[in-house]
C-alpha cells in the first residue's frame, strides 16, 4: 500500500455528467518526497517514509533535522511511513503527487476524528436513554443498570460508559476519487472524511 499525506480543506459539491449532485471533500495531497526507504535486508520489512509540507529550520527539532540531513532531504512538517505489502522499486528522493491516483479509483483514507469531549452514553454508544415523559425523573439520558447484584458484585470490564469521545484514528474505506487537479495538488473524493478542516489525512491506495 502506498499513498500520500494530505490536508483536508473542506467540503463542497459538484455536478456529474448526469446532472446529479455529488458531495465531495477537497483534499490537498502531496507532493510528498520519499525521505527514507526501508528494506527487508536491513530493516526487516519494506516501507517508504514520506514527508509533506516543507518548512524552515525553526519548525523542526534537532533530532529530526539530523534525520533529514542524513537522507539529504529538505525539512518537512509531516512524516509518515507507508508499509509496502508488495515490493516496489522506489528510491529515496523520489517525489509522489496526486498523479498517482486515477479517477474512480477507490482509496482508504485515515484521519483523526473531531474531538467531542466527555460525552454521555447516548452520544458515545448510541444508547436509547429514557422517556422524556411518563413520570421519568432526573435520568433522561442515563445508561440504566450497569450490572447485576452480589454476584458478580463488580462491573465487567469494557462496559460501555460515558467518557472521552473523538480525537481517535478513524479510517474510511472505499472512498471514490471524483476528480484530480495535478496543478493545484488537489483530490476530490466522494463523501466525508474523518477530521476537522486543515486536519492531516493519509490517502492509501491498494496495490
Amino acid at each position, binding site marked *: 500500500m502506498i499513498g500520500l499525506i494530505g490536508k483536508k480543506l473542506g467540503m*463542497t*459539491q459538484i455536478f456529474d455528467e448526469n*446532472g446529479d449532485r455529488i458531495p465531495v471533500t*477537497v483534499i490537498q495531497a502531496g507532493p510528498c518526497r520519499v525521505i527514507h526507504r526501508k528494506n527487508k535486508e536491513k530493516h526487516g520489512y519494506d516501507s517508504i517514509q514520506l514527508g509533506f509540507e516543507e518548512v524552515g529550520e525553526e519548525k523542526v527539532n534537532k533530532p529530526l533535522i539530523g534525520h533529514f540531513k542524513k537522507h539529504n532531504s529538505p525539512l518537512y512538517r509531516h512524516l509518515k511511513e507507508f508499509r509496502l505489502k508488495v515490493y516496489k522499486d522506489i528510491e529515496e528522493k523520489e517525489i509522489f503527487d496526486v498523479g498517482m491516483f486515477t479517477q474512480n479509483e477507490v482509496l482508504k483514507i485515515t484521519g483523526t476524528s473531531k474531538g467531542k469531549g466527555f460525552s454521555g452514553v447516548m452520544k458515545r454508544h448510541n444508547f436509547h436513554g429514557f422517556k422524556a415523559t411518563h413520570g421519568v425523573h432526573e435520568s433522561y439520558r442515563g445508561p440504566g443498570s450497569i450490572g447485576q447484584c452480589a454476584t458478580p458484585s463488580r462491573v465487567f470490564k469494557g462496559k460501555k460508559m460515558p467518557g472521552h469521545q473523538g480525537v481517535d484514528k478513524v479510517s474510511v474505506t472505499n472512498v471514490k476519487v471524483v476528480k484530480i487537479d495535478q496543478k493545484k495538488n488537489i483530490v476530490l473524493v466522494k463523501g466525508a472524511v474523518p477530521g476537522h478542516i486543515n486536519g492531516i489525512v493519509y490517502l492509501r491506495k491498494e496495490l
Partner: protein
Amino acid sequence: MDIVQEIGKDQIRQDLTEFRVGDTIKVHYKIKEGAKERIQVFQGIVIQKKGAQISQTFTVRKISNGIGVERIFPLNSPNIQKIDVVRFGRVRRAKLFYLRNAKGKAARVKERKRY
C-alpha cells in the same frame, strides 16, 4: 477555504434568468426516464433561496389540486433547461414560509412594479 470555493466554479450557471424570492417562475427541468429524456415544467412561487456558490438552491411552492407542493432545485444544476419569470412579486422578507399556513387572500403576493 478559497480553494474549496474555486471547486466547481466552471459549473456555475450564468445563463439563467435572474429571479427573486416572491416571483412566480416556471422551471423547465430535464427528467430522465430510462433512456428517454423529457422536460417537465414546474410553476410556482419562489419561497426561499439559500446557499452560496455552486451549492445554491431555491424552493418553489405551488398549490396542486388543493395540496401545497414544494420542490427544491439546485440552482446550478445542468438539468435546468431554462427559467421563466411569469410574475414579479413584491415581498418584505427573504423566506416566505408564512405562505404555508396562509389561506385564501393572505396567501397572495403583491406584484412588483418594474420601471
